[in-house]
């Protein structure tokens, strides 16, 4: 909470003025019953028409001043709440962008998105309401009591009983229904889940003829939900009637005690009406206050969750080196590298050593979960190894400025992700200053020319969110082109031809091999056919390197490679 409050700094004035103006409005409101009392006691009693008229003018004036005060208060609180929150959002976005892969894994992107959207909106609502109501409601509730005391303490003692009693009922009901509402919500989520499941799994459910069973399940869930809703409804329905009864009984007692004081001559008839009005005022404000406190606790919980994201520090520090190493050094060298992910008891990679010279083509193969992607993630220093060393052009990867290092690497990730914007915008991710000619060249190499030509807008074709308006294979080829636009020293293809058919895949490999600037290329694949032309192939099994060499060498010596190969070319070997 504390750290977030620093974002409030620029809004100190507003945070002070908003509640102040609100309080003024409340105070003016508290004077109204007194004015009414004097209309009755002085104006009517003396038959003084102009006095009555003046009193009414005062009432209108009090209302107008109150309105003016609120306008200021509402503006200040809206301004402060929105400004505060947009400051946090900027800070949070920047902070999250600075995190390393390891922290992103631990936090999870969906959590981060929730923090930045719904959590932060809750905070905004909370701050806004707090600034607006936190002064008003207590001032009216306790102000009404104090004003009543000023009118007559003896008659007003009932306030001391009524306020805590009302508070107990209101808060008791609200607090006791919170967990019940949560249960209702989770039951609603169950029905949502079942509905979703029956859509995503429509084919399987129908294939196994499970329709009736699913119906029964859903009906059970709605019945459950119905029961939960009725229960919570029954409890929260107590609030209005109970408070109504309490207030009216209190009024009866108040008037009774007022009557006694009037009889003694300590109080006038008009003052009794004033007391009655004060009693009526507190209920609405008390309910508002209770709701405000619920909103505030929610907002504080959200704020704390947001703060916990701020507390996560990036585990990697950027180095300072902004130039490559010596000519003769290998582009990439792994020296006995061990990798372990945060929170995992076991190594994901163990004792990996190899070198890749400039322009070489390195293949990486292995089953699912064998550590292929982990290995290539070390090259761009997306993770740091626990033991050993990753050297890029002779220097430890940790010595490089991270941005410099990553600029020199072109990655095609497994999942083909594109962003909203034109094809051109997307490909310029690789190189901000790329010309159209360079972009087209990259597209040609990535075998994506036909994709480009299939849309009449060409490079100006607008890609929708998540690349929805392109097929998987089309997206994949654009992501390849995006990496190629960089003309990177190191090119990494992480199983990036999975959505391509064999023919296109082969053409792609050929085109990459023919590229002018000869990048050092890493190709991750499950298919031996895709790797046969590589200078060296690294065979991974369960995080360990079980073989390295050319296709022929491995075929002769590496049993795991043989197995993989045979599984794909069974008949040929026979």
């Amino acid at each position, binding site marked *: 909470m504390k750290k977030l409050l620093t974002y409030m700094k620029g809004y100190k004035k507003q945070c002070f003025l908003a509640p102040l103006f609100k309080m003024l409005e409340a105070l003016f409101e508290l004077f109204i019953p007194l004015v009414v009392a004097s209309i009755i006691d002085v104006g009517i009693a003396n038959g003084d028409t102009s006095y009555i008229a003046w009193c009414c003018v005062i009432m209108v004036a009090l209302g107008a001043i109150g309105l003016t005060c609120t306008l200021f208060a509402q503006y200040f609180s809206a301004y402060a709440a929105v400004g505060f929150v947009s400051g946090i959002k900027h800070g949070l976005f920047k902070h999250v962008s600075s995190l390393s892969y390891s922290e992103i894994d631990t936090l999870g992107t969906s959590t981060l998105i929730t923090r930045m959207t719904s959590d932060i909106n809750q905070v905004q609502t909370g701050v806004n309401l707090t600034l607006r109501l936190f002064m008003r409601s207590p001032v009216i509730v306790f102000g009404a009591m104090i004003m009543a005391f000023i009118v007559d303490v003896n008659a007003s003692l009932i306030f001391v009983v009524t306020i805590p009693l009302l508070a107990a009922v209101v808060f008791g009901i609200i607090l006791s229904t919170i967990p019940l509402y949560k249960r209702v919500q989770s039951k609603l989520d169950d029905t949502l889940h079942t509905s979703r499941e029956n859509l995503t799994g429509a084919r399987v459910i129908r294939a196994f003829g499970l329709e009736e069973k699913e119906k029964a399940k859903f009906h059970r869930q709605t019945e459950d939900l119905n029961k939960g809703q009725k229960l919570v409804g029954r409890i929260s329905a107590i609030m209005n009637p109970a408070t109504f009864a309490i207030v009216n009984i209190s009024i009866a007692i108040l008037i009774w005690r007022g009557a006694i004081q009037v009889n003694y001559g300590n109080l006038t008839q008009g003052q009794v009406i004033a007391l009655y009005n004060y009693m009526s005022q507190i209920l609405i404000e008390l309910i508002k206050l209770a709701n405000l406190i619920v909103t505030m606790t929610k907002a504080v919980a959200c704020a704390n969750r947001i703060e916990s994201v701020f507390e996560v520090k990036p585990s990697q520090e950027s180095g300072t080196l902004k130039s490559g190493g010596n000519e003769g050094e290998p582009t990439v060298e792994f020296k006995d590298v061990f990798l372990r992910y945060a929170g995992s008891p076991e190594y994901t990679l163990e004792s990996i050593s190899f070198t890749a010279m400039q322009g070489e083509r390195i293949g990486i193969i292995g089953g699912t979960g064998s550590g292929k992607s982990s290995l290539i993630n070390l090259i761009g220093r997306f993770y740091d190894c626990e033991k050993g060393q990753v050297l890029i052009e002779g220097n430890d990867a940790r010595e490089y400025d991270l941005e410099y290092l990553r600029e020199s690497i072109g990655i095609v990730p497994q999942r083909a992700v594109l962003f909203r914007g034109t094809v051109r915008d997307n490909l310029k991710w690789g190189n901000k200053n790329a010309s159209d000619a360079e972009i087209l060249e990259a597209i040609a190499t990535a075998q994506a020319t036909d994709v480009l030509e299939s849309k009449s807008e060409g490079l100006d074709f607008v890609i929708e969110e998540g690349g929805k308006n392109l097929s998987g294979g089309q997206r994949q080829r654009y992501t390849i082109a995006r990496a190629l636009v960089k003309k990177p020293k190191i090119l990494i293809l992480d199983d990036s031809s999975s959505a391509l058919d064999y*023919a296109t895949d082969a053409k792609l490999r050929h085109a990459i091999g023919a590229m002018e600037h000869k990048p050092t290329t890493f190709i991750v694949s499950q298919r031996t056919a895709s790797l046969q032309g590589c200078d060296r192939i690294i065979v991974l099994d369960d995080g360990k390197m079980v073989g390295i060499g050319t296709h022929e060498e491995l075929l002769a010596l590496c049993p795991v490679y043989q197995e993989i190969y045979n599984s794909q070319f069974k008949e040929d070997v026979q």
Partner: protein
Amino acid sequence: MKKMQLSSVKRVFKYIKKYTFLLILSILLAVVTVGFTLYIPIVIGDAIDQIVGKGNVDFQIVGSLLLRVGIIAVGIAILQWVMSIINNRITYNVTRDVRNDAFNKLEKLPLSYIDSHPYGEIVSRMISDVDQMAEGLLLGFTQFFTGIATIIGTLIFMLFLSPIITVVVVVLTPLSLVVASFISKRTYSLFKKQSEARAEQTAIIGESIGNLKVVKAFSHEDESLEDFDKSNEELKRASVKAIFFSSLVNPTTRFINALVYAGVALVGALVVMGSFGTAITVGALSCFLSYANQYAKPFNEISSVVTELQNALACGGRVFELIDEKEQVPDKEDALALSDAQGEVVLDNVSFSYTPDKELIRDLSLRVNRGQRVAIVGPTGCGKTTLINLLMRFYDVNNGSISVDGTDIRDITRHSLRSSYGMVLQDTWLMGGTVKENIALGKPDATDEEIIEAAKAAHAHSFIKRLPKGYDTVISDELGGLSQGQKQLLCISRIMLSLPPMLILDEATSSIDTRTELKIQNAFASLMLGRTSFVVAHRLSTIKEADVILVMNKGNIVEQGNHRELIERKGFYYELYNSQFENCEEH
């Protein structure tokens, strides 16, 4: 639009009909409680009239009047509570009934509907739209009736007490309505701007943070932040305006209430003094003042209820649209229940298309004998799964016919046809539940031993064993935790358990690494023995042994024959096959 609303109203009433008695009771209670609620200030006024001054208080009357206030208040409280419970019961039961109907419909919708509508949209109709409708209904019940009763009741009571003051209240109160509607019209457009700005920002967050790894891989953090800040600035501007204007409603209506209050006090005081003929008492004035305080409230409530109700009806309309959706053609009454299918499948001049303007399959004829293996190959997106949709009767053919064991599949019950096939799809789908339940999907009465046996055959046993609770581990499709390959192994276990007479394998091993796949192949081979099977794969090595290969391209079957025949033909299949062995060194 209006027509749709009207029909929605009719539909809602149809659902409420079951609860007519409760509804009438609720309305009755509303009238009674409102009447008594309005009566209380009058009693209090009468009491105040007995408290005139020093030594001039009639305690006996005051006492009995105040006692009456207490008793009435408690009575109202009880009635109000009963009314709320009744209202809750009506709304929640209607919600449940509507949801159940919607779900029943869901299970009968043709696959074409499900395939062509975003899941999120259908789900939101069933869940949030129904909720919104319920909320609107509940609010309608609780506030609409009581609101109207309050307005009418107050009018009657006021006229009874003093027509002149009533005129003041009736003339001034609409001001607050005018102001409120003026503000809310303004805020509507501001809110719209705000929600557009927010949607834009959410999209940016979803993209940049959801794909943060890609952003970082391209060192694109600064540019993303720039984009974000732009949207942030825009949202900030829109939000301040929207929040400020919307927060004006309460203070301005409060101010207008103060005007009404002052007006009542002024005219009331004059009436009390007898300036307008018949005088009223001070107590009656206090009663008027409390009416004046509350009179605007039901108007404001009703106006918000009206928007709420409109929204509820619109939501209801969407739900009812789903419930009214055309169902799949029901099974014929004399439809045959297929048992122990032999597996002789004949496609006779089949034509099919998803949309009328784009023909997919034309005049396809194919005869598959018992135990034969049919492979379907072709590049991505060529329509391989279409054939499966037809075989499983997820879609009906447009022309021609498909028959199993000599009977047109349209004359067979869907359930028996589908359970004769064992289907494993590329798109693995697991249902929320334990591993065991998922494997036993097609055979719920299977013993543990049978389940483990099936898992072993699918090579899933070893990884299931290592799950936290073994076969009782709860998996949820959404939660993940299992790799795509492991999910596929579970799906294969399903058919290893149910052992249906025919098989459909759509890229069934696409996510399993080739070494494990090889191990499963043997199990598949023995499973396919004697069973008619349809296999879609792009690993050509798994296809070579098929009896018939259907080569598809752009939705059509372009070639048909076995591996050797097709290679000799040097056509499309030949080209596909060769690209697998292409060696990068050659280029």
